[in-house]
């Protein structure tokens, strides 16, 4: 299979993601320039972390207007796999490919640290290499990761099993302290109803090599491989 990583002006985890996909996961990975109209045959499109357009208006708010987003939307609507990490998650929310919105973290500070998240649904194409209840240690680095959705939407996504990851303590317990950014229902990652688009705030590319302190992030990439290649 082949990955494609979108580069927006202000993306800064683009090459980290390319490194993880090419060097660690070992799959060809195209760099997709935001001004183009070509996904270059990617089987999975990744919107990476960073500060697209400086995030001056609202995180991800301008990136949704990039030319390439037209193709990404069509690709997603046809069932193609789209993964948004951190700022990429925010862009997917702004695009309307995922429900809800992001608020500032509850302590109103940027937060960079390892967190633990629990796999809530191991049946998705982004988590099938993991198991339900598994605790993953993966870093976050964001200012706006406090997930919000109105009560009806929350009920929908919970009922449909769209919540993929929740912030938890190292033992897998859901506590207020473990919900570091204050997200509703401690949501750290979710899919669309169809299950082909996922956004997550933690950075799996930062937890894919032992020297970086964790390899738990590989679960996400290996799940995608499994979904596409088998």
């Amino acid at each position, binding site marked *: 299979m082949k990955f494609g990583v979108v580069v927006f*002006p*202000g993306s*800064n*985890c683009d*090459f*980290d993601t390319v*490194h*993880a996909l090419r060097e660690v996961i070992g799959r060809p990975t195209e760099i997709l320039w935001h001004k183009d109209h070509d996904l270059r045959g990617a089987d999975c499109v990744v919107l990476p*972390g*960073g*500060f697209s*357009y*400086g*995030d*001056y208006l609202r995180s991800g708010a301008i990136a949704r207007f990039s030319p390439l987003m037209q193709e990404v939307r069509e690709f997603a609507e046809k069932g193609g796999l789209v993964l948004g990490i951190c700022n990429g998650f925010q862009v997917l929310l702004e695009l309307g490919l995922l429900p809800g919105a992001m608020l500032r973290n509850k302590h109103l*500070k*940027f*937060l*960079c*640290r390892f967190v633990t998240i629990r796999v809530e649904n191991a049946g998705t194409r982004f988590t099938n290499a993991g198991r339900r209840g598994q605790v993953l240690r993966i*870093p976050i*680095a964001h*200012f706006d990761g406090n997930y919000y959705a109105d009560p009806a939407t929350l009920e929908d996504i919970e009922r449909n099993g769209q919540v993929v990851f929740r912030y938890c303590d190292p033992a897998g317990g859901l506590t207020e302290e473990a919900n570091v950014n204050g997200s509703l229902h401690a949501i750290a990652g979710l899919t669309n109803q169809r299950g082909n688009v996922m956004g997550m705030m933690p*950075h799996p*590319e*930062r937890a894919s*090599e032992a*020297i*970086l*302190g964790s390899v738990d992030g590989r679960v996400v990439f290996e799940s995608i491989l499994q979904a596409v290649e088998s």
Partner: protein
Amino acid sequence: MIDPKILSQHNLTPGEYDLIVRLVGREPNLTEIGIFSAMWSEHCSYKSSKIHLKKLPTGGKNVVQGPGENAGIIDIGDGQVVVFKIESHNHPSFIEPFQGAATGVGGILRDIFTMGARPIALLDSLRFGPLENPKNRSIMDGVVAGISAYGNAIGVPTVGGEVYFGEGYSLNPLVNVFCLGLADKDKIFYARTEDAGNAILYVGAKTGRDGIHGASMASQEFGEDTETKRPNVQVGDPFKEKLLLEACLEVMDRNLIVGIQDMGAAGLTCSTTEMPAKSGRGVEIDLDLVPQRESGMTPYEIMLSESQERMLIACKPERVKDVQAAFAKWDLDAVAIGRVTGDGKLRCSFKGEIVVDIPVSAVVDLCPMYKRPWRTAEAAPRPADSGRYPLPADLGGAFKKLLASPTIADKEWIYRQYDHMVLINTALLPGVGAAVLRIKGTSKGLAMTLDGNGLYTQLDPGAGGRIAVAEACRNLACVGARPVGVTNCLNFGNPEKPEVMGQFKEVVEGMSEACRTFEIAVTGGNVSFYNDTEGVSIYPTPVLGIVGLVDDTAKVVTPGFKAEGEAIILLGETRDELGATEYLKVVHRREEGAPPAIDLGREKSVQEACLEAIKSGLLRSAHDPSEGGLAVCAAECAFHGAAGIGFAIDLQGGLRPDVLLFGESQSRILVTARPEDTPKVLGLAKKHGVPAAVIGRTGGTNLRFSLEGRTLIDLPVAEARAHWMNAIPDYFRVAEETNA
């Protein structure tokens, strides 16, 4: 007409003015005076410091570029170099903490990528006044947020640094930012125009009225009117800089340009004079073509603006279109504003008239150098100082006070606001000691650390200089890295005061001696004088940034204890020294005495022993005692180690217990080893002539210190850890409640 008032506003002496008239060959106009004022400011010219800085060792086999360029360059083998530098942004950060610190980050990043290197690490050395004062909390909050906003957005990790608190920094915080970049040795760029006929391109953000006189502002004391200087502080745009970074690296990688310089201090003035001066050429530019953000700007304002995120590029005329296309891809303008000439002059036209016509070498090379009078203070009393202080009845209480002292306390509140992992090289998370990054595609790593204790330097400048270098190298040795190069940021008061100049001279001499001992070259840095507010100078604060090389990142040793039942070994020895310690400051409320003595030969042996033990795979952890002494060092090893492991340490010898626990004797490293490896570690120490002893064992859930079997301190790890972890956040919680 240039009159004494204008000269004084421009910080130029009558003597300097006479020299300018001679060099230009006529009376200069106001714009030209502005240019000389900026370039001959202390900040740009080093006119007071150069005669002393010459004493620093700057050469070596691995030195590709020493002082005099935007940053220093060291060869690390395999066709790669590291490009690094530290710079201060103290004055702007006091006036406007957020933007002052943010643009400090932006400025040092440009210094690195202007040389063709991709920045991969930032570190910060910060000094604030005591946090009891809300003004100091507000400055710290703003500075940290500013660093965070800029570094995080541009995507360069802030991987380490250091923070000290002291009364002397209340009215004059220090913000020193270090950046390191990685480049291929054959792809380095310099600030040159090369041949006449080459095109001069202006790239990046538009020019506005912000930051006019920034360089001169950094070269004066602050008084009561400081607040009115806020408009002199620039505003940063990390998004613009990210685009500029990518576009610049792209035109360099494709070899489309011949030279490049960032427009930092003194802006267009600095780049349009330094670039041609280094190539023995001149430059002719049309100021009407300079992209401007505001209307009605005068030539004076255009030349002296310090608007951020701008660069000046020289390229062959036939390459202009290619360069412009590359910048257009990143939605940036690249405007041809002039050309390189053969006559050695900077000539600027504005609305059809020549408004500047001066020789570039006069501006860049002929600033008068000063041998300012200096006076050294009498040495502080050294011997038997410990006897002068009552021994605290409750050593555990003193220990908890130290753990909660902001200088010692956990800095996570700060570093979790920084993205310290982006670029996925961070092999050792921030928190204590040196930062370690892997170099992708190799087994090698880079270690970096910043160090400088202003109180030591205040009480003995020469020792302070030596210790700053020694301790930085020791931090590197603790992770298994050998030092390869040095940059420094020298923060001092007004150099026109003889006692400040005396401190400066002695610090530089101390640093120089230590650098020679460690055989490392100083490749550049920054001098920040005039850190005086309302006549009071800061503690003289040299901050050393030292870069080390790790041969094999798999062998890196970290400070945290790894397992129960391992031997705790002290390399080096504790002497009867309490002067200048954090203990005296926090527990006895005294900032006095002589700092600990340092024997550079002994220091080197201790580090060699540690390096060899790490290379042989004998050590499980290593950390050096600094502020707070052995007790705090051991506690930090527990806090950073595997969950909740405590220790029992039994101290020996005829010294007072507070000296043994909290003294800051130099040349010591606390290491752990598996019991079976302990004899090998002791043997290695002996081979290097280093005293070493097993002083305890890891294990249990308490931090326990005893003196010859008699308990001194016995505290649960969790309780001690809470004091250490909550100290800084608590100050800000109080602040939030008070505001609400």
